[in-house]
């Protein structure tokens, strides 16, 4: 039998092909469309119109605030939950963990539809509170992505560090503020990244909750469905740059603890 032999660099060919076909090529297409007009001439008009239109800038701001509020709400719910799950001797804690993870196994549209029914019972007319409903919908959707990285980073926290802190005179609150919290920052960062970025663009949640408001994702969607590839691409590009900046900033934070990145799911 003939032996198949690869050297290391050959082994990366499938990945490189995939990367070129599905990441680099589309990126080039987006960049091309973003800086051309309908006739294929190079132009910065799309760019200028995005930053001069109060409509698009308003949407950008709205998406941002929605994403930030969602992320904060997720964090506020997720941190105590993850803390209890990771640190307590509570015997049924795995059941609790499952309760938070289980919704992820159910189809996303089904979940949101169910949520819509619950909300319309509670609020009567759900179109009255678009922002609140969007936050609720996205929190429901993205909460597990916040809990899991926090849970892993709190779980691997060395218990002797907490003992050392209390041995040195720290009471329970000080131990939390000065040891537990700083050491769970990598978990907080990766959880926030995983919630912030999708909640800026995931307009499906809004659509399904009969929401009239627009976020960045809906804007791109509407341009694309009107066959305006140029403006749609430009907005995608703007988002890409924002995401890139956010990732740079967060990486800087988590690099301080180099082994903190393992918290991603």
């Amino acid at each position: 039998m003939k032996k198949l032999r690869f050297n290391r660099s050959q082994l990366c060919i499938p990945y490189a092909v995939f990367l070129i076909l599905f990441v680099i090529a589309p990126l080039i297409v987006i960049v091309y469309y973003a800086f051309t007009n309908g006739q294929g001439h190079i132009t910065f008009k799309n760019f200028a119109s995005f930053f001069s239109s109060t409509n698009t800038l308003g949407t950008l701001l709205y998406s941002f605030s929605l994403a930030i509020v969602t992320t904060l709400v997720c964090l506020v719910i997720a941190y105590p939950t993850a803390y209890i799950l990771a640190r307590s001797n509570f015997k049924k804690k795995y059941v609790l963990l499952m309760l938070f993870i289980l919704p992820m196994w159910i189809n996303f549209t089904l979940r949101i539809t169910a949520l819509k029914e619950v909300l319309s019972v509670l609020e009567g007319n759900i179109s009255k509170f678009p922002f609140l409903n969007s936050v609720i919908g996205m929190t429901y959707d993205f909460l597990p992505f916040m809990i899991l990285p926090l849970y892993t980073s709190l779980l691997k926290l060395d218990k002797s560090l907490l003992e050392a802190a209390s041995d040195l005179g720290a009471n329970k609150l000080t131990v939390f503020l000065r040891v537990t919290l700083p050491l769970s920052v990598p978990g907080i960062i990766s959880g926030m990244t995983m919630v912030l970025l999708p909640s800026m663009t995931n307009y499906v949640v809004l659509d399904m909750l009969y929401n009239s408001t627009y976020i960045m994702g809906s804007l791109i969607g509407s341009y694309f469905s009107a066959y305006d590839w140029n403006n749609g691409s430009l907005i995608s590009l703007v988002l890409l740059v924002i995401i890139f900046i956010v990732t740079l900033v967060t990486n800087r934070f988590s690099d301080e603890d180099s082994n903190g990145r393992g918290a991603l799911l």
Partner: protein
Amino acid sequence: MGKSENIIELIDVKKVYDGDTVAVEKFNLEVKKGEFVTFLGPSGCGKTTTLRMIAGFELPTSGQILLNGEDISNLPPNKRPVNTVFQKYALFPHLNVYENIAFGLRLKRVEATFRNDKGDSYTKKIKLTKAEIDKKVKKALEIVDLEGFEKRSVSTLSGGQQQRIAIARAIVNEPEILLLDEPLGALDLKMRKEMQIELKNMHKRLGITFIYVTHDQEEALTMSDKIVVINDGDIQQIGTPTEIYNEPVNTFVADFIGESNIFNGTVVGKLKVKFCGATFDCLDDYEINQLVDVVVRPEDIKICPVGEGQLKGKVISSVFKGVHYEITVGIGKYEITIQSTQTAPVGGMIGMRIEPDGIHLMQKVYTVNKYDGVITKTNAVEFGDGEFECDVTQLYKGSHLDEEGYLITAEGEKIDLTGVAVDVEVDTHDIIMTDDKDAGGAQGNIISMIYKGDHYRYIVRTEENEEDYVLSCPDLWNTGDLVGIIIPKDKIKLSLKPAEGENAR
């Protein structure tokens, strides 16, 4: 000064985990101010648990811990003037060296006197100033010989340096007691030796009481003022290093500290003991005919020409160990280890002499195994996590069993023995170990073995209720082996429990 100069006192301290695992029991200890005390014992013996109770990480199930005469048993760790150096250092990875050391200082509040507008003085607890903290951190780094490391991240330090930072972080708070939980366990041998000396010097300079936990007997002997030998949650012996080494109270201590030859001996006269087929003068006074354990250190056996000493034997092996030779000699069926600066030809005959002060006699701890047992339906007996066939007719003189399994006494009375509680005794020589763990009536792991010259004494512990079987066996087994326990039917001695004992069950 108060009624005593004991800085810390443990009274009848007991710690039970999960309701039934006893980690420490009847722990009584007094530590004087400024002493260097070492808890020494094999792993899992309860030494770390005891240390953690002093630090406040574990609360004793019962008993008291007194610090300067005050009960601190239930105080949380942050309220105790005690600091710990952890086994794996437990330095805060998110803080640099300076911040690690300053951690305790920043939380510290000291009393200061102020004067208000009216001129009355009052005291208030205030934080240390930045300059004070700076000064103390600098001093602590000087003590551990790491000046200039303030800005370094702890992850860039070597194991030895991290260890020093951990020590600095603890002593900077000026604790009354410094607890050290196997602090040198993770260092290599050379580094460990250096740190031993440094710790000892640090102890002298600082005058703080040190409580040190280790399983390394050499470390304990080198550093301590007082050694507490612990095994299985019980204190075996408390004493100075020389006392522990020269006068071990039992075979466990003798075997654990240094090398020992341990034999079964019999007292044959006033200050005379017989072992290895010869009679020796000794210094320990026991009753005549009492069975004792005899401990002889290898360096206390002197080689002499054949016919001069009390013993003679054939040299089996001689190994050069640097300072001395380790010589194994066969005396009949016994084997004895000698450490000597002179060697002897392998295969040759030598004489051996032991001076009276080299012979240590100890009361035998185990001569017979005793259990609480219950007779089963099949007239077997259940004890020590196992079921063994036995002869139940010994319970009533002259009785016999009928074909249905009832016991007929000599008077003709018919008794159903099922469920009857009995005392069971089995001699250590009558228990047999087997590789086939299911072949015997019970099974367990070998937890201890001590060589007794011509045989080994093993302790086999069952998993379920941690029942111990003490037995003698000439063959070598390994600690940790899972073995089956066989006891011949006629070797199990049964007796009825006294009446009130029966009610108690």
